[in-house]
């Protein structure tokens, strides 16, 4: 049986580098995709991804296993994304609004969307950032509505609403195929 995340993080806090490696291997893929699909650019995603893990490393002494590790990890990721968006990522500042130049409306994107995966991806990218983030936290991070609310600094109702809207739009894109 694999050790829980919280146990591994506590072990790393106490000096066990091997515990961090297990934790990293377990979460690197979902977290990377979460970041990548939040910023669109791979180079930026890699930079943010590294910053997030550095924050984890730096904050290990303050880690208290009261909350789930994934909630803590994606809270850090959320904050890094918000910082990134505030630094000037144009389309994603208004988190609950549709981004300008919605790729779902873009003819080029529509051509790509002829294939189901491309269409789904286009629909995902077309989501408002908050809705997309809620969906990605749910799919990649496995977070519950309550955990999504904590990670994004919102309340459960807002988190639940965002997630429902995201799923409804994505479902429409799947059904259209």
């Amino acid at each position, binding site marked *: 049986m694999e050790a829980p995340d919280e146990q591994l993080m506590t072990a790393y806090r106490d*000096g066990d580098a091997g515990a961090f490696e297990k934790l990293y291997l377990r979460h690197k893929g979902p977290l990377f995709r979460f970041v990548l699909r939040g910023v669109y650019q791979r180079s930026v995603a890699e930079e943010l991804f590294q910053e997030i893990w550095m924050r984890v490393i730096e904050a290990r002494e303050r880690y208290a296993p009261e909350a789930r590790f994934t909630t803590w990890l994606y809270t850090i990721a959320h904050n890094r994304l918000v910082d990134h968006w505030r630094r000037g990522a144009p389309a994603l500042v208004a988190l609950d609004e549709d981004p300008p130049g919605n790729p779902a409306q873009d003819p080029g994107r529509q051509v790509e969307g002829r294939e189901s995966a491309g269409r789904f991806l286009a629909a995902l990218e077309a989501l408002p950032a908050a809705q997309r983030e809620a969906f990605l936290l749910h799919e990649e991070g496995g977070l519950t509505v309550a955990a999504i609310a904590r990670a994004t600094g919102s309340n459960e109702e807002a988190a639940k609403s965002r997630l429902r809207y995201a799923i409804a739009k*994505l479902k429409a894109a799947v059904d259209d195929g």
Partner: protein
Amino acid sequence: MAEEDRDPKVSQAYRALEREEPPRALDEAILAAARRAVGARPAPLVAPVGRRRWYFPVAAAAVIVLSATVALRIWYEPPEMDGASPEPAPPAGQKRADEPPAARDELRAKTQPGGSQRGVVSGVEPLKDASPPLKEPPRIPESKVEAPAAAPEPKREQGAPRSPESAVTGRLSKESAARPMMQQRAAPEPAEERTRSATVEESPERWLERIAELRRQGRDDEADRQLAEFRKRHPDHKVPEAVLRR
């Protein structure tokens, strides 16, 4: 998230997307940073670092090993004896009176795979070397000698330091030297034979004195028998007149 909010088709469609992963170089950089962070913990204020932290344990171990070596060396050191050879082992089951108690047995058991078989193992010096000179095994009175009466004797002749008495009897013939072995094999001896075998151990002079004493006591028959035996053993030895005369 409530179960009613789940949509398997959406989840399945999302899972069908490419599963991007971070590049390996990024993995290594992050893991290295994690290891460095743990390794860079502040060290205790008084704990020695680097090579110095081994100084005390190594020095302590060296002192212990050296002390033990010197102690064992002293314990096993053979006494300075010219031409002395290791004393043969006492008969099995016979504990020497002057042997130190259990600790010594224990030490011997550790150093010799054969347990109490002293001198059997090469490379390990016999324990007696460092101990005070051992007493002769108590001599068994002739009257109490049983069948293997001569058993302790051959061991003493195999290289034990010679007593003054045995130095005198050094001229014993090969026959007399081999005799104890024959006696070992022999069945129970009659009393006369036992007496005779005991005289073998005497010096010729003492033997002759004893015969002369028998003459003085008027026990000529026994004196004659002893004389005959004496001549058989020491044909070249001059027999004094007092011994010959009845």
